[in-house]
C-alpha cells in the first residue's frame, strides 16, 4: 500500500461513517424523502411561464376598442385588467399597481404611422418578460398580416419601474431577502444543536429560565446579525448594481427584525426538535428550497398553480420579496410595506408558539 494513502484506514472510516449515517433514521428519511417531495413540488408547481398577468389596455381608436378583447382571448398568459381606457389610463394602472403591462394605442393622424406605447412594470422581470416576448411575437404576426402594404405602427416601450438594460435588477432586491433567510434559517437551526453538543442545554433546562426568556436571549444576537446583514446587503446591491435606494428603503431595514426573526424562529424549531446536526440542517433545507422556488424570486409567482401559490403565500420570503421590489424598484412609500408585513407577522407569531412549545419539550 502506498505510503500517502492507506486504503484500509480509509475503508475503516468509510464503514463507521456509513453506519453512523444509517443509524440516524430521521435524517435518512429527510435525505431521501426531501428530494422526492421537492421534485414533485417543483416539477408540478414551478413554471417559467406566468399566468393571467394583468395587462391594461387603452386607446382612443374606436376600431381598436372593438378588436382589443380578441388580444386576450384564448391566452392564459395575460388577462385584461379593467375596462378599455382612454390614453393615459394604461400607464396610470401600472403606477397604481393594477397592471404589470400597459398597452396604449393612439389613433393614427393623417398618414402618420400608428403609435403604440407599451408601459412595463419591470419590478418583477420574471413575470413581465414572457408577456413582452408574447406581445412581440403577436405584433410581428399581425404586422405580417395587416401592414404588408401599409406603414407599420411605431411602437415605443417604456419601463416605468425596473430597467431592461440592467438584468441584475431582476434578482438584486430579492437577493437581500434570500441571503438573510438562508443565514437566519441555518443560524437558528444550529443554535440549540450546538448547545446540546456542548452539554449546556441540560443544565440550562434545570434552571428557572422561561421559554420566552430563552428564546429572546438566544435569538437576539442572531436577529441583530440579520438586521446588520440587511443593511449591508442593501448597501451592496446599491453600490454594485446601482439598485435605487429610495427613502422607503428604511422600511425594509425596519422590517428586517420581523422577517429575519420569522426564519430564525423556524430554524430554532428545527434545532429544538432535531437530535442531530444533520436533522437540523435537513429541516432548514426543507424550508429553504421551497422559499427560494415558490416565493416568486426565481419563477413568476403567477405561473404557479393555486396550491403552489398557497404554499408560497405562507412563506415570509414571498412577502418580503414583494416589499423589496415595491420599495426598491417601484419607489413605493415606506407605508406600503404594511400589507406585506402582516402575513410575515402571522407566520412569525405561529412559529413563535411552536418554538416555545419546542423549548418546553424537556429531555424526555
Amino acid at each position, binding site marked *: 500500500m502506498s505510503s500517502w494513502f492507506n486504503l484500509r484506514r480509509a475503508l475503516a472510516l468509510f464503514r463507521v461513517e456509513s453506519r453512523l449515517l444509517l443509524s440516524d433514521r430521521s435524517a435518512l428519511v429527510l435525505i431521501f424523502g426531501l428530494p422526492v417531495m421537492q421534485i414533485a413540488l417543483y416539477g408540478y408547481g414551478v413554471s417559467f411561464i406566468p399566468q393571467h398577468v394583468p395587462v391594461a389596455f387603452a386607446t382612443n381608436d374606436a376600431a381598436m376598442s372593438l378588436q382589443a378583447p380578441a388580444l386576450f382571448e384564448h391566452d392564459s398568459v395575460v388577462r385584461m385588467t379593467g375596462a378599455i381606457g382612454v390614453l393615459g389610463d394604461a400607464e396610470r394602472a401600472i403606477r397604481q399597481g393594477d397592471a404589470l403591462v400597459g398597452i396604449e394605442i393612439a389613433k393614427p393622424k393623417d398618414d402618420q404611422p400608428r403609435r403604440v406605447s407599451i408601459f412595463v412594470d419591470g419590478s418583477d422581470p420574471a413575470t413581465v418578460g414572457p408577456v413582452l416576448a408574447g406581445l412581440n411575437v403577436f405584433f410581428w404576426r399581425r404586422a405580417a398580416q395587416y401592414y404588408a402594404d401599409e406603414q407599420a405602427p411605431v411602437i415605443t416601450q417604456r419601463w416605468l419601474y425596473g430597467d431592461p438594460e440592467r438584468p441584475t435588477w431582476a434578482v438584486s432586491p430579492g437577493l437581500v431577502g434570500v441571503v438573510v433567510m438562508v443565514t437566519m434559517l441555518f443560524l437558528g437551526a444550529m443554535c440549540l444543536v450546538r448547545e446540546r453538543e*456542548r*452539554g*449546556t*442545554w*441540560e*443544565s*440550562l*433546562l*434545570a*434552571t*428557572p*429560565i*422561561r*421559554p420566552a426568556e430563552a428564546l429572546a436571549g438566544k435569538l437576539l444576537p442572531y436577529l441583530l446579525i440579520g438586521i446588520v446583514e440587511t443593511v449591508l446587503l442593501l448597501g451592496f446591491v446599491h453600490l454594485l448594481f446601482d439598485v435605487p435606494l429610495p427613502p422607503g428603503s428604511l422600511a425594509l431595514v425596519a422590517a428586517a427584525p420581523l422577517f429575519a426573526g420569522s426564519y430564525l424562529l423556524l430554524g430554532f424549531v428545527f434545532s429544538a426538535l432535531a437530535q442531530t446536526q444533520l436533522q437540523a440542517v435537513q429541516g432548514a433545507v426543507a424550508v429553504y428550497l421551497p422559499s427560494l422556488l415558490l416565493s416568486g424570486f426565481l419563477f413568476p409567482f403567477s405561473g404557479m398553480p393555486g396550491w403552489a401559490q398557497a404554499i408560497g403565500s405562507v412563506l415570509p420570503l414571498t412577502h418580503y420579496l414583494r416589499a423589496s421590489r415595491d420599495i426598491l424598484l417601484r419607489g413605493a412609500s415606506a407605508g406600503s410595506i404594511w400589507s406585506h408585513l402582516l402575513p410575515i407577522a402571522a407566520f412569525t407569531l405561529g412559529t413563535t408558539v411552536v418554538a416555545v412549545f419546542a423549548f*418546553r419539550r*424537556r*429531555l*424526555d
Partner: protein
Amino acid sequence: MLAKYRPDDPGSALVRVDGLAKRYAGSRGVAHVSLQLRRHEVLGFVGPNGAGKTTTLRMLAGLIRPDSGTGCIVGRDVNVVERGSSRVGYMPQKLALYSELSVADNLRFRADIYCLSDPAARVRRALVDFGLEDRRRQPAGQLSGGWARRLQLAAALIHSPDLVLLDEPTAGLDGESREDVWKRIQALAGAGAGVIVNTHDLLEAERCSRVALFRDGEIVTQGAPADICEAAPLRAALVQCSDVNALRTAVASDAGLLTLEPHGRRLRILTTVEGFDALCSTLRAQGAMVTADETRLADVALVNERTASQKIGAVRSEGRTA
C-alpha cells in the same frame, strides 16, 4: 397525600416522591421509585449503568416528566416540569460549560440566570470558595478535567440551592480532586442542604448518610450504608495462607462462596451467611488463618447486580481466576 415542603421547617422533607416511573421505547426506564430526603442528608444513588439513576435524578431536577407517580421536590410538584426550580442546583454528568467564556463569565452567567442580587459579589465568593481566583480569566475550555469539574460544581451551587443534585460529580477525577468534591458535598449537607449524588464508586457511596441501591430501574434497598451492609445476608473474611492455589482449588466448588479476591498479601472472601462457618472450617483445614472482615457496600452492590443464576457461575469463575 404528601406533606408539603416548608422552607422554614428543618425537618421538612426536601424530596418526597412516591411511585415515580418513566418508560422509554426499547428500555426499561425506571419504576416504583419512592424516596425522601431531608436537610443535612447526603443520599447516594448507587447501581450499575442503565439501572435508572440518571433518569431518576433528571426527574427530580425537573428535566423529565414522570409517566406516573407523585411527590414534591422542594415544594414543587414533581409532575410540573415547565422550568427548573431556583431551590435546586443540578450538575449533569457531562461537562456543561461555555468553553469560550472565562471562568468568571461562566459563573456570572449562572448568577444572572438565577437573578441573584449583587451577582459580582456572588461570583467573587464562588471564585474564592472553589479556589478559582487565579483562573478567573482563563477560558473554561482550557481548564483541566479537575478544574473544569470544580467550576461546574461552583456554577451549580452559586445560587445556594436547598437541594443539590449531582450526577457522577467525581467521574474522571484524580484522588485529590475526588476528595475535594466530597469535602464540599459534606460541607453542603453540613450547611443545611440536601444532596443527592449519583455514583459508581461504592467507597465514595459509603460517605453518604444514606444510599439507594438501583437495579433494573428500581430501588432494591435504601438506608444508611452501615445498616444496608448489616442487613445484607453476607459475611466477609480475610484469609492468610502459604499455598494460595491449593486453597483456591479446595474452596472453588463451595456453594457458600460468592467472591474470592486478592487483598494485599491476603485473600478476601465473601460468602452467604449460611455458608460462612463451613467455608471457614474448610479454609482452616487447609492451614489458612481466617479473620472476619466487615461487609462493605461494594459487597452488597456486587451481589445486587447479579441474578441468582448468574451469581454462582460468575463467582466461581472469578474465584478460579482471582
